[in-house]
């Protein structure tokens, strides 16, 4: 069995000096359109321990420095050499097109968080409405509760609009992007939006500078930009089911 870290373009990259999970040496397998970088695995399942996770990421990041185009694999992909060859053969065109798409590019992550001050204010208001003893009647309690919930909804809508404005400013600086809105009422730590942007290596500084500007222009939210990452969010979805024959 082999543990696969990433797919890259031909010719195979220099993998000297890179050690995989369990300190196993890195090797590669080539098809007619792509290269799969892997290390041997004794186990069919690799546990997501801290050490293994960091080693996976370390290998992928090392490859990112050596490969103009790289598709990182999800953690834990263990399969046989035969299966891997079959997948590369069947999906060679898709993989090649995806490598072309991410060539000379990296991924930058942007998270928009609601400020703690606003979170606490909303929480305080919500807790007040929950103190039934503070109201002289049930009607008064219900009115206060409705008002509090309306404030929360209005606040969420406001932050949602801010998120759209920020995204519209960043998207032109990227080749592609993904964006996920979170329900702030249920999310941990007030994460409003999670985004990923596919950015040319030569445009990283410009993108980061724009994030800084947007952070200054929008003091009601907190922007955190991380990266550069390998392009985890911009990989092909491979249909792994065997084609049926009628």
């Amino acid at each position, binding site marked *: 069995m082999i543990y696969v870290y990433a797919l890259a373009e031909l010719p195979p990259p220099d993998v000297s000096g890179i050690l995989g999970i369990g300190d196993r040496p890195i090797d590669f397998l080539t098809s007619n359109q792509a290269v799969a970088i892997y290390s041997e695995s004794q186990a069919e399942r690799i546990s997501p321990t*801290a050490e293994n996770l960091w080693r996976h990421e370390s290998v992928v990041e090392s490859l990112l420095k050596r490969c103009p185009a790289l598709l990182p694999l999800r953690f834990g992909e263990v399969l046989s050499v035969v299966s891997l060859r079959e997948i590369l053969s069947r999906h060679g065109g898709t993989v090649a097109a995806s490598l072309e798409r991410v060539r000379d590019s990296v991924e930058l992550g942007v998270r928009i968080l609601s400020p703690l001050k606003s979170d606490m204010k909303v929480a305080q208001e919500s807790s007040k409405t929950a103190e039934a003893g503070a109201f002289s009647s049930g009607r008064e309690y219900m009115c206060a509760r409705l008002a509090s919930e309306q404030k929360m909804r209005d606040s969420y809508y406001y932050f949602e609009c801010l998120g759209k404005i920020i995204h519209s400013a960043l998207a032109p600086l990227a080749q592609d992007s993904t964006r996920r809105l979170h329900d702030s009422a249920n999310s941990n730590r007030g994460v409003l939006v999670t985004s990923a942007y596919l950015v040319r290596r030569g445009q990283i500084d410009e993108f980061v500078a724009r994030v800084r500007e947007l952070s200054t222009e929008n003091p009601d939210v*907190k922007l955190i*930009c991380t990266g550069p990452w*390998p392009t985890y969010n911009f990989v092909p*979805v491979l249909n792994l089911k065997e084609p049926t024959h009628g």
Partner: protein
Amino acid sequence: MSLRSDDQELEQQVTLVELLDRLLDKGVVLTGDVTLSVADIDLIYVGLRLLVSSVEAVQRSRLDNSKAVER
């Protein structure tokens, strides 16, 4: 430019969450197994609190060269 310590801690935590989200829920899938995530990042974050703690404890020094970009 130095950040306040609470901002630094927040950025380190977010960076860890970003890393785990990518490793466990993104990237090319070859085996077709059920992904570890179920709904969204919040579930991942909550489900992996212990792992995040252990990762943070082991890799705090690595984060000195943090991937978090300064604001």
